[in-house]
């Protein structure tokens, strides 16, 4: 008996008008699994990860969270899961952080739990402070985002997602907009999460990091999963010519 998957995707496609970006993707993610998605730009990897919390609505295919069908409407309907409920359980961090500039660091983290989960201020703030300590920003809770470095902003954004107590975390190129010297502090937080058992999907260009932290690496090319497997296999003995070419550019 295999472990039931937490997210399950079958024949998922996404088109923008005539342009078919995702051409049928199947994927099962088991609890605690860390999946790194790699691939050339324009391959559809960002679109795919955004489908996993219904930020993009798939054109066709099925999408289940813990066995329940997920629908694009915000509210749940009989036997199905709405996008609103899904997003409480599946957190997402973005390339450009998207912190709320009008709120302090602490309020950035507490806003979701306060508004969506109706947590009390005391409860939300206690949890937020614990999370800020975890990402190494306990002393910055009263700062506004404009006063933080890129790496600090991304760590606040991670704390903000974790405040919802998600079951899955999605990271969409979270280090791509950072200065090189700030990348490692963010990757360290992601690594800690992986070691803590968080289920994660990350789209990344950090090949060494992907190889190190992921249980499975997925190579998306031209809207399909072209190759997947344990990092050692995928990274060190790529089968397809496309993946060989792609990896070569990073080793060069």
């Amino acid at each position, binding site marked *: 008996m295999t472990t039931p998957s937490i997210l399950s995707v079958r024949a998922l496609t996404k088109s923008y008008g005539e342009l078919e970006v995702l051409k049928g993707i199947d994927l099962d993610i088991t609890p605690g699994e860390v999946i790194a998605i790699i691939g050339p730009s324009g391959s559809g990897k960002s679109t795919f990860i955004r489908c996993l919390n219904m930020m993009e609505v798939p054109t066709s295919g099925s999408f289940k969270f813990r066995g329940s069908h997920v629908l694009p409407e915000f509210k749940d309907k009989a036997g199905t899961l709405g996008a609103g409920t899904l997003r409480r359980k599946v957190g997402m961090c*973005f390339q450009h952080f*998207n912190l709320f500039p009008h709120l302090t660091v602490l309020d950035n983290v507490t806003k979701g739990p306060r508004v969506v989960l109706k947590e009390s201020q005391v409860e939300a703030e206690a949890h937020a402070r614990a999370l800020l300590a975890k990402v190494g920003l306990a002393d910055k809770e009263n700062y506004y985002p404009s006063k933080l470095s890129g790496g600090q902003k991304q760590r606040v954004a991670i704390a*903000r997602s974790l405040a919802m107590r998600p079951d899955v975390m999605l990271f969409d190129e979270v280090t791509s907009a950072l200065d090189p010297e700030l990348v490692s502090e963010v990757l360290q937080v992601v690594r800690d999460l992986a070691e803590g058992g968080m289920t994660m999907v990350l789209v990344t260009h950090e090949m060494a990091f992907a190889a190190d932290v992921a249980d499975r690496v997925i190579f998306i090319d031209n809207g399909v999963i072209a190759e997947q497997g344990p990092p050692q296999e995928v990274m060190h003995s790529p089968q397809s010519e496309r993946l060989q070419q792609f990896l070569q550019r990073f080793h060069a």
Partner: protein
Amino acid sequence: MYNWDFYTVFQSFDLFWHGLLTTFLYTIGSIGFGIVIGLVTAFARLSKWRLLRGAARTYQEVFRCTPLLVQIMWAYYALPMLLGISIPNWIAGLATLSLYVGSFYGEIFRGGINAIDKGQREAAMAVGMSGGQAMRHIIMPQAVKKMLPAFINQSVIQVKNTSLLYAISIAELTYMTYIVNSETYRPLESYSIAAIMYFAMLFPLTQFADYFERRMRRSD
């Protein structure tokens, strides 16, 4: 040398005072209704329904592209002929002023909302907020700051626009000044007092707008 005589004119001070209060009430009333109309228009124009967008757009263009004086006259003299009922001048005046300023507010509000990066909405949705919650807790608080200078500017213009109500005999400041002048034959004094009263009302407002804009620039 002109012989200034404020004394005669000041004997009609209660008329000026009444005019000033009336101007103030029409300003507050039309700005209040205008904000509601502007919000509805802005959200209609941002809606995904084409018909709603089109209706809001049409309303805005009609009111933005015709002179306010013509609108006031039309509402008071022409519309009753179409409807077959008479409309009291205060209703025609207040409604026209509100619809007029609402069409401009709509554009100001829409611009402020559009100026907020779409990543803000996405981040709010990503923690499970509904569209309405994202608007209320994340987008609007930021958009209001961006809107405020243009909003104050339009409101200053609105105070002055109430003077056009003199055309349908509403006893606001300009109309009352006209009355005082026709009784005293002292146009220089009468209209100078009116100008000073308008100025005293609006100068603090424009100063506040400037101050606010400077503060905003510093916090960016």
